[in-house]
C-alpha cells in the first residue's frame, strides 16, 4: 500500500502509527499509519465493513488497539481515557439525550466541570448558535428532525472545545438539503475554531467535496491518502480506481448534460 502524502510545514496534530485490531480472531485493521494536520478536514472513505468505524473508536479511546500508537501533539494518548484526549465524537445516530432539551444536551457535560459550570448555558448557546440551532435551545430533542438532531449532537461536542472532532457518517440519515447545510456548517467550524475534523463516509462525492485530504480505506488498510485532486489524477491502485474514481466519473457523467445551464 503506497501512501502518498503531501509534504507540509504544518506540525502534525494527530499521528497514528501501526494500529492493528482483531475481533474474534479476525484482523480488521492491518497496521494503519497516517497523520493529520492541525485544522485539517480529513475524510476517511471506504465501504461498510472496511474498519473505518473501528479506527474512529480507537482514535477516541472507546476501543484499545492490539498494537500501535496514537499521538496528539506528540503526546502518546493510546492508553488515555476518552475524555482526556481533547477529542470529541459525533455518532451516526446522534446519541442525544432524548429526555432533555437541545440546550440541556449541550450543557450537560459542562455541569461536571467546575471551571465552566457557571457559564455553561452561555457556552452551550454559543455552540448551538454556531450550528444555527440557537432558536431550538429549549425544544426537547425528541421532536427535532434528523438534521437538527445532528447539529445538536455536533454542538454538544463543540461545547467542550475539542481539538479534534471525529464524525461517524454524519450525513447518512439526512436528506439532500440538510446534507448541504451541514457541510457548510462543518466548514464554518473548521474555519472559526481551527478544529481538526476527521469524518467517515462511504459517499465518494461527499468526501471529495468537503475534505482537504481523503484517506481511501479498504479491508482494513489504507490504499491512498492524498488531496482529492491528486487521487483523481493518480489513483494508487485498482481498488482506488474502481471504488473512487469510477464512481465519481459515473456521477459526473450523469450530471454532465446539465453542465452548461448549471454553469
Amino acid at each position, binding site marked *: 500500500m503506497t501512501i502518498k502524502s503531501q509534504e507540509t510545514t504544518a506540525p502534525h496534530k494527530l499521528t497514528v502509527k501501526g494500529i492493528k485490531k482483531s475481533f474474534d480472531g479476525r484482523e480488521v485493521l492491518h497496521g494503519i499509519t497516517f497523520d493529520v494536520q492541525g485544522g485539517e478536514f480529513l475524510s476517511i472513505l471506504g465501504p461498510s465493513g472496511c474498519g473505518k468505524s473501528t479506527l474512529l473508536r480507537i482514535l477516541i479511546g472507546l476501543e484499545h488497539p492490539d498494537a500501535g500508537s496514537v499521538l496528539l501533539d506528540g503526546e502518546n494518548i493510546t492508553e488515555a481515557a476518552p*475524555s482526556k484526549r481533547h477529542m470529541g465524537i459525533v455518532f451516526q445516530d446522534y446519541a442525544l439525550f432524548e*429526555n432533555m432539551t437541545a440546550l*440541556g444536551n449541550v450543557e450537560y457535560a459542562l*455541569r*461536571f*466541570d*467546575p471551571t465552566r*459550570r457557571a457559564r455553561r448555558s452561555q457556552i452551550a448557546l454559543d455552540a448551538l448558535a454556531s450550528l444555527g440551532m440557537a432558536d431550538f435551545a429549549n425544544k426537547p430533542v425528541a421532536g427535532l428532525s434528523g438534521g437538527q438532531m445532528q447539529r445538536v449532537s455536533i454542538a454538544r461536542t463543540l461545547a*467542550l472545545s475539542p481539538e479534534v472532532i471525529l464524525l461517524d457518517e454524519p450525513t447518512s440519515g439526512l436528506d439532500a438539503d440538510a446534507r448541504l447545510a451541514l457541510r457548510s456548517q462543518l466548514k464554518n467550524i473548521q474555519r472559526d475554531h481551527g478544529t481538526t475534523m476527521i469524518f467517515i463516509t462511504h459517499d465518494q462525492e461527499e468526501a471529495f467535496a468537503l475534505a482537504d485530504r481523503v484517506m481511501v480505506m479498504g479491508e482494513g488498510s489504507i490504499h491512498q491518502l492524498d488531496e482529492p485532486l491528486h487521487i483523481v489524477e493518480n489513483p494508487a491502485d485498482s481498488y482506488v480506481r474502481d471504488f473512487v474514481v469510477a464512481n465519481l466519473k459515473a456521477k459526473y457523467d450523469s450530471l454532465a448534460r446539465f453542465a452548461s445551464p448549471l454553469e
Partner: protein
Amino acid sequence: MARRIHNDDASPGISRRGFFELAGGAAACIGLGALAGAGGTSSNSVVIYSCCEGIRNETQMTALRQAFPNYDIRMHYITTGNCAARLRMEGASSEADIVLDLEGGYINQVSDSLEVLSDFDESMYCEDLLDPDDRYFPFSRESACIATNDNILSERGIPTPTSYQDLLDPVYAGVVSMPNPKTSGTGYNFLKSLVNAWGEDAAFDYFDALAENVYQFTSSGSGPVNALVQGEAAVGLGMTYHAVSEINEGAPLSVHFFEEGSPWDVYGSGIIQGRAGRQAVHDVFGWLCTEGVRIDNATYVPDQVLAGVSPEIPNYPKDVKYADMTGITDVDEKMRLLERWSH
C-alpha cells in the same frame, strides 16, 4: 476536562444525593424490619399458636387479658397443617411459646419440639385423652358428625341419610363434601373410625365408592360445614361444633350420627421446648389448661374433656355415641393409611 463529583443540581432524573437518600432510607427500613421481627419477644411476652378458630380464640384472649394484665400475650390463629409444618420445621426455635388445640395425630408428629409437662397436674382430664409421654395436655375433645343442609335436601328431593351405605346411593352424587384426610385431622378421623369399625380393606373400598359422590375433598376441616352453609353441599362430613355454631346462627343445618359412632380426637396444648422456664409462659399455660379448657368446654365444644364435667350447649347433641378411635394418635399408622389414600 476532569471528572468531578458534582453537587446537587436541578436536573432531569435523580440527583446522586437523592439516590443515596432513597437507598439509605430503604436500608433503614429493612434494618427496622429485621429488628421488628426478631425483637418481638421479651420476658413478659407469650406467643400462642392456636388452631382454635376466631371466636374461641377471642373468648380465651379476653379472659387471659383479665387474668394477666401485665403480660404481653399474642394469640395467633394458624391452620392445623401449617401449625404442624412450622413446628416440625422450626422446632425449638419457633416464635411460638405455646401451641393450643393442635389435633392429636399432628401434635404427636411434632412432640419432639414440646416440653415434658411434669410441672402440671393432669388428673382433671379424661383418661382416654392423655398423652402417655406427657408432651401435651388435652384442650378439647372434638367430634365429628354427618351434617346436612335440610333446605337443599328438600329442594332436590334427596332423602336424609341414615347410614354410611346410604351415602353411596347415586341420589347423593355431587352433593357430598368431606375433608381430605391428607390435610385435615377431621378427614383422617373419619377414615380411621371406619378402619377400626370395618377393617382396613372394607373401609378403603367404602371411601373409593363414596368418592364418586363427593364433589370435593376440602383441604381444611371446616370446608364441609362452610360448603353446607353456602348451599354447595347437601351432606358434609364435618365437625359437630362447627355445624352447631352455624345452626345457632340460623343456618338450616342438622346434625346426624351413624351407627358406627361419631369420630373424635383429642386436641392438645403444649409448651415449646425451652420455654417452660419463663414465668409468663408457665402461668399462661397453667391457666389455659385449666380455666381455658373449662371456658371453651362450656361455651363451644362440650364434648367431655374434663373428668366428671359434661356441659350443655343449645342444639349440641347430648349423649353422643363415640366411634372406636383406637390408635388415632399413632403416627406410623396414620402415615401408612394415608399412603394408601388416593383421592
